[in-house]
């Protein structure tokens, strides 16, 4: 069976996503709409800035790097933006290359299909298109591209943990694993499952990055492939550049941005020097407080539950399953203790055992991102940002219900302002709702590359959180 291109581009009508329809309605009402920056790799970052940040010699290094690790040998928008941090990009690409191309438990077309499934959960058409393209190049089982219903039962079984991991990873249990591993003919081997889980987590997190950095869709002018053309044109290109939260977003206080930066640095300094000991109870409640506060941190009005209409949705079943706050009081979920199941001690060993060497790749990636620093903040130089980085990382884990006994969650409150928390929560929990305004509203003094750095941290923190939950479930299943 082959895919009939016409069936995908069935209607001539150019589909317009919900958000754009909203924008259009607003337009009719005569409201002023901020013009999106659509040219260049990112809708949030001016093209000039990216080009300036990568001088020519570095650019060639990037190209060589990409040539080593990607199929097309070309810089796509994603790698261009990530290329602002070449040190990280290398470990990222190596890991992704290993996941997608080097011999592993799963066949190639499965890997890309899983990537599509994962990205589709967040309606990330950028990643979906990319992997649809890759899938076509492999040229097997093309009928799967018609949607999840055309894929084999085995892949459809994966959908359950795909949606849980994407939106509420804390709900995953060993029963889910059991259902996948012991189902007779459509069962997964543990090695395959681990490969799939790593792929899912990788692409969920990558979707966060794509939305968080406002990556523009690839416009491949000389795409020789008809299918791809149809696919690209059929997705609403404005997905990323638009502002889907048009309600006027009042920044808390609208403080002068320079003093904002100064204040942040002042707080960091104070925290570093301060030796006063918070009482035990105080420490214990701070996590709870932060967790519960994250409930209130929402980006405002989307009571209208958006059910996606885009074409990506054919890879999604149960689209209404979305993010729900971990901290919702009624179901009282147990906190995940990072000390009892940590990446370094447990996650690594398990993942490396079942899918050899991926542990080292991920380990290097996590290590790179947590150690990445240029010792400066905005215009100030020679600053130790460890504290800030740790606050970002732990805040993401906090929202996923992972607690570090040895971390004072009061620091999060001190260091991360409200608009940043809004941004973090949006990017990690429901990235498809990220808007340019959210991106712009925090840390206005900071460089774009620093904001991309924040996105990298968020992406890796999210990936690790998902992996920890999934691997813990697998461990429980195995014992």
């Amino acid at each position: 069976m082959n895919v009939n291109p016409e069936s995908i581009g069935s209607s001539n009508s150019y589909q317009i996503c919900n958000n754009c329809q909203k924008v259009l309605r607003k337009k009719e009402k005569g409201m002023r709409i901020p013009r999106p920056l659509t040219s260049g790799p990112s809708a949030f970052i001016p093209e000039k800035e990216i080009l300036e940040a990568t001088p020519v010699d570095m650019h060639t290094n990037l190209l060589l790097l990409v040539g080593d690790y990607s199929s097309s040998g070309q810089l796509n928008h994603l790698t261009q933006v990530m290329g602002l941090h070449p040190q990280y990009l290398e470990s990222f690409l190596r890991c992704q290359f290993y996941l997608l191309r080097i011999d592993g438990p799963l066949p190639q077309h499965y890997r890309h299909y899983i990537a599509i499934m994962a990205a589709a959960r967040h309606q990330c058409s950028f990643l979906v298109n990319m992997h649809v393209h890759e899938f076509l190049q492999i040229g097997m089982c093309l009928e799967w591209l018609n949607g999840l219903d055309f894929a084999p039962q085995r892949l459809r079984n994966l959908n359950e943990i795909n949606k849980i991991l994407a939106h509420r990873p804390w709900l995953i249990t060993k029963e889910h694993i059991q259902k996948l591993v012991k189902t007779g003919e459509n069962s997964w081997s543990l090695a395959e499952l681990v490969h799939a889980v790593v792929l899912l987590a990788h692409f969920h997190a990558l979707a966060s990055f794509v939305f968080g950095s406002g990556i523009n869709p690839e416009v491949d002018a000389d795409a020789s492939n008809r299918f791809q053309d149809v696919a690209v044109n059929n997705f609403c290109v404005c997905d990323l550049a638009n502002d889907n939260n048009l309600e006027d977003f009042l920044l808390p206080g609208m403080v002068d941005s320079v003093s904002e930066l100064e204040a942040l640095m002042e707080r960091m300094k104070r925290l570093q020097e301060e030796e006063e000991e918070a009482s035990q109870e105080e420490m214990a409640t701070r996590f709870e407080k932060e967790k519960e506060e994250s409930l209130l941190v929402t980006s405002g009005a989307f009571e209208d539950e958006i059910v996606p209409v885009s074409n990506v949705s054919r890879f999604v079943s149960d689209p209404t399953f979305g993010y729900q706050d971990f901290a919702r009081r009624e179901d009282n979920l147990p906190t995940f203790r990072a000390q009892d199941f940590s990446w370094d001690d447990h996650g690594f060993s398990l993942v490396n055992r079942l899918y050899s060497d991926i542990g080292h790749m991920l380990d290097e990636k996590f290590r790179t991102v947590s150690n990445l620093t240029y010792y400066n903040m905005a215009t100030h130089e020679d600053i130790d940002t460890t504290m800030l980085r740790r606050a970002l990382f732990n805040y993401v884990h906090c929202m996923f219900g992972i607690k570090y006994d040895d971390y004072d969650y009061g620091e999060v409150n001190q260091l991360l302002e409200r608009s940043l928390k809004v941004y973090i929560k949006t990017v990690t929990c429901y990235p498809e709702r990220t808007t340019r305004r959210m991106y712009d509203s925090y840390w206005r003094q900071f460089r774009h590359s620093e904001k991309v750095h924040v996105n990298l941290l968020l992406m890796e923190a999210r990936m690790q959180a998902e992996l920890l939950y999934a691997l813990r479930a697998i461990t429980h299943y195995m014992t």
Partner: protein
Amino acid sequence: MVKLLLAQDHQKMEKMARVTTALGSNTISGCTMFCHLDAPANAISVCRDAAQVVVAGRNIFKIYALEEEQFVEKLNLRVGRKPSLNFSCADVMWHQMDENLLATAATNGAVVTWNLGKPSRNKQDQLFTEHKRTVNKVCFHPTEVHMLLSGSQDGYMKCFDLRRKESVSTFSGQSESVRDVQFSIRDYFTFAASFENGNVQLWDIRRPDRYERMFTAHNGPVFCCDWHPEDRGWLATGGRDKMVKVWDITTNRAKEIHCVQTIASVARVKWRPERKYHLATCSMMVDHNIYVWDMRRPFIPFATFEEHKDVTTGIVWRHLHDPGFLLSGSKDSTLYQHKFKDASRPVDKANPEGLCFGLFGDLAFAAKESLISGGGDSNRKPYGSGGDRRYPIFFFKKPDLTEQFAHESSALSVFETDLESSRMDWFVKTARRYLLSGKPFGELCDHNAKVAKELNRPQVSTTWTMLRIMYSDPGNLATATSISKGGSVPLMNSFNMKEIAAGGLGSESRLDRGKGEIRQDTIHLDPGNSLINNNDENEETEGSEGPADYLFGDVELEDDDLYPMEHENPTAEEAEYSLPQEAFPLRHEIVDNPSVPEHLQDKVDSPHVSGNEAEAVCLTPIKSFSLISISQPLYESHLPASFFSPVVREMLQHYAEAGDVQMAVSVLIVLGDRIRKEVDELTQEHWYTSYIDLLQRFELWNVSNEVIKLSTSSAINCLNQTSTTLHINCSNCKRPMSNKGWICDRCHQCASICAVCHHVVKGLFVWCQGCSHGGHLEHIMNWLKSSSHCPAGCGHLCEYT
């Protein structure tokens, strides 16, 4: 001598420790026993008189007394209404000098000491909250009562004097997390620290500014380390890389003297008392057993304790001088005492046998001496092995059987193979010379039959001939035979002999296997067979095969319907194959099965000629026979190809199972759709992959690629579509070329220009690896015939080989 030294050491220890317990007087006794804890344990530690054990975890902190047959809970140290995180222990240690003193490391970074001598319920003594992150390890000084060391995730180690409120000194591990700290038992001032980045550092407690030595012990975190209780220079380390290593640090550079590879990351390692080469390990994940290793036999554990149901988190030998009891705590919320005598011995279950093929087909086989009785074969050369480890570890004790590693002495036999007999020449030659496509079916078969015959493989040759006869249309059969008449006659002869031999043996199985051949015979009306014989055979096959009867009837009735039916197939195929071409970028022919068009052609001209020619064929040999025999063969020569399918399928399976997957695949390809549907996809795929694998081992790349191309299975077909990208750099500016066109984006020059004709090379490009100039293959070849210098004029002496 050794005994004397040990005894002295022993005395010294006793004296220093001011301990009254002497093993000689009151020996520890007990049995393997366990008790349930309320919560998972993280660490355990034992009191110096071996009578009590403390268990610590996130939600547990209790002391149990070790009695003869059970554990008895003595004390619960978790008191207070709302236990704080200070009770959430990552590690615990009982002081070896003062039986009232305990220290714990809390996950929130606190170091807590406990005094059991306190009269109140809360035994907490001191609280140090100097670490910023989780404290992974606490360690008391073995002889100094007030000295406590801690190692934390924040990268610092701190030394506390328990008489003071804060640490006396801080040691920095350069921002790498500390996983374990251990005071040396023998050197008063030394301690070892292991780190998350794989390093081990040795420190002098008096010099907090800099470590004395550092070496990289493992790849990835070093979770644990332990000093040897007797040998001051030995340090054992265990890491996430699943290794246990023993280091000799008396030399200038730390030297790895033993290494054990385990099956999971090593969480704890503890030397076994009184046994110089033994140590116990448990793992961090997945594996729940406790192993005791003999360093000198690293491939199999000396003893195993398999009681735990979840990972073991803490192990400790019960007494400093008693190797007989091991205590362990686990995530499964149990506390065990293991008696060494009850341990299971993996070596008892192991098969000390080995088998290995040599490069030239020699076979080496090692087995227990007792199994191989002195056979005395001329080509068997026994080697002795394992003789060097016959002696027990200690001299001062009478060797105890349970304390010895089982000794195996094996006999090794090497079987040499006759090089000639196992040569695979025939395989290579066959692979090279077989034709799989490009000619009409009949010719392919004939060609392949000839190849097989020349290589002295008559059975294979005959099979090809038979296939031709079975599947050729009558029309083609005629042309084929008339063309290669000379070749076919001797073939028939060889076939006859085989057939007779089969008949002579007369065994059922033989007949079954030969069924195809026999059936073939009757069709061809071989003059060498008597008529009666033929009929006999026929009856037998008809009787045994139900479908055969049915088909006979069918054929008689629907003789004419046969052709239109066959016409439908090719068209269906055509449709099927044309589709992928739309979907793929046409880089090269992807699914091209040349047998299809030929097949089609055959069919097209067959119907109208067939009538006459078929008769002609059948008539020629018939002349010498009575009429009775004619009628039967006549029908059979019109048998539909599908009639033979089951037989051919069996034949293919037979070849594949006999190891000649080459034949199976070749037939599969040559027959194409005639047989494809008969054999299930997976088997086909399996055959293809094994054949391709073989071809690639013999470096027959072209053949293997042809096979991939001709295969009809999609899984195989896509093999030659993977890793087809070739990255090129522009020859002018040395930058990567984007995949568009022949002009480099950056320097705007044509890349890959022929050095001879100065045109762009589009096709085979050959270049010199010395000067990287090159061009059209033809041009370069011609050029280098007349000149030895590079055509580009760079002066390099190029070589064309």
